[in-house]
């Protein structure tokens, strides 16, 4: 399992629960997830917090099927079947990877509008890890 310790996960709660991003004070680009140094200009570590809309479009996606899921998602794949993982271009610019939910894998299309919602991601050390997934925006 890709181990993420409880304190490490806890520190990412604002981005995982409510899409809190950051805007680089030097180049003005939006970073999500938040970075130590701006990934666009590589020249600034000064940011202002930015509440993202959670909306975006599917840039591309893949279906994770039998044997393809990382250990923390293996039970999910076994019980629920293959699940979509998408690269989504957010309204504010950044492209992020996330699971898609509330949709049959056959209905996922490139270019479709999506928005983030709080879902259970997986459990580790007896603690439920919540975070965003993308669902159809309608």
């Amino acid at each position, binding site marked *: 399992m890709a181990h993420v310790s409880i304190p490490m996960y806890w520190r990412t709660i604002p981005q995982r629960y409510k899409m809190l991003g950051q805007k680089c004070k030097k180049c003005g680009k939006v970073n999500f997830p938040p970075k130590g140094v701006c990934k666009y200009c590589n020249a600034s570590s000064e940011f202002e917090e930015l509440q993202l809309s959670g909306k975006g479009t599917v840039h591309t996606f893949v279906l994770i099927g039998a044997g393809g899921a990382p250990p923390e998602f293996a039970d999910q794949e076994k019980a*629920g079947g293959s699940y979509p993982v998408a690269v989504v271009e957010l309204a504010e610019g950044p492209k992020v990877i996330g699971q898609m*939910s509330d949709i049959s894998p056959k209905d996922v299309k490139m270019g479709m509008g999506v928005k983030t919602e709080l879902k259970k991601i997986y459990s580790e050390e007896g603690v439920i890890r*919540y975070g965003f*997934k993308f669902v159809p925006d309608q």
Partner: protein
Amino acid sequence: MNGMTVGISGYGSYVPRLRIKKEDYAAAWGSFSAAGVSEKAVMGLDEDVLTAATKVSRRALESVPLEGGVVSRFALASTSAPYVEKLLSGTVIVGAGISNGAFSSDHTTSTRAGTEALIAGFEHVMANPGGHALVAAADAPRASMWSPIEHGFGAGAAAFVLSSSNLIAELEGHASYATEHFGERFKVTEDELVHDLSVKKFFEASLVSNTTKAANALMKRLGRKPEEYQHVAIQQPDAKVPSSVGGKLMFGEPQLASALVSKSLGDLGAASTPVALAAALDVAKVGDRIMVISYGSGAGSDAISLKVVGDRKATPSVQAQIDKKEYINYVQYLKIKGAIK
């Protein structure tokens, strides 16, 4: 009520898209025990009552609209929380962007929890006229697959913004009745599953007694007659109970119709009367009266009387979500519920 007008200024509901039909239960077990329920809603693998409560909280705030940052009271209701000890409200407060300074409470020990939370919210806005309470009820009760009570257990959620201005429904009053009863629908500390004696008459006697006492006390205090209510939302462990209780209170089938969500969603536990209330608000006209009557084993009932004063509706409606569904079979259901280890 003492002069001060408070009520509901916004609301939202959520029904998961997965459904299982009663025929699938009948094929697996030879019978289906939830009277009048034809199918029920099921939460997906990546959902629980906290993600559902977060979703309806956002929807309720958007329906006003109101910023989560001005909420001064948050109350959460569920009988199937993922933790026995841990502040459940914390997840929803952060997930829905509710003020961290809001006083919060978790109501979890009976299916009456939904109206407990609502009344706690009303009391807050009565005492703090500029305040806003957000009340979210979400439930997906769990029992052993061998238990007949499990057949009806569905899933759903609803949330309400309570304020003293910009109202769509005014609170006319509330009344309660509680007494000692046991053996029906209980969870012991050592077991996360709901137990039940499965003696329907014993359970219904308590339900009918408590709910009629609470509702009659309220109507007497308000000087109301049953026929003055256009919508009556009664606790729905199955889809027949509202008729049994309604019959005793002289409420007819047309008054029960708009809130009868259990026939297509199942037993929503602590979210039963909240989702039923949301369904009634979806179709209510200005001037209509709504009676809400909850029941929780152990046992107690709250009755709440509301008068509709605005026609701002939440989207999507409960009915629109009832109509949008994807069926699963019983084996898929067992896997999603974690009944096959």
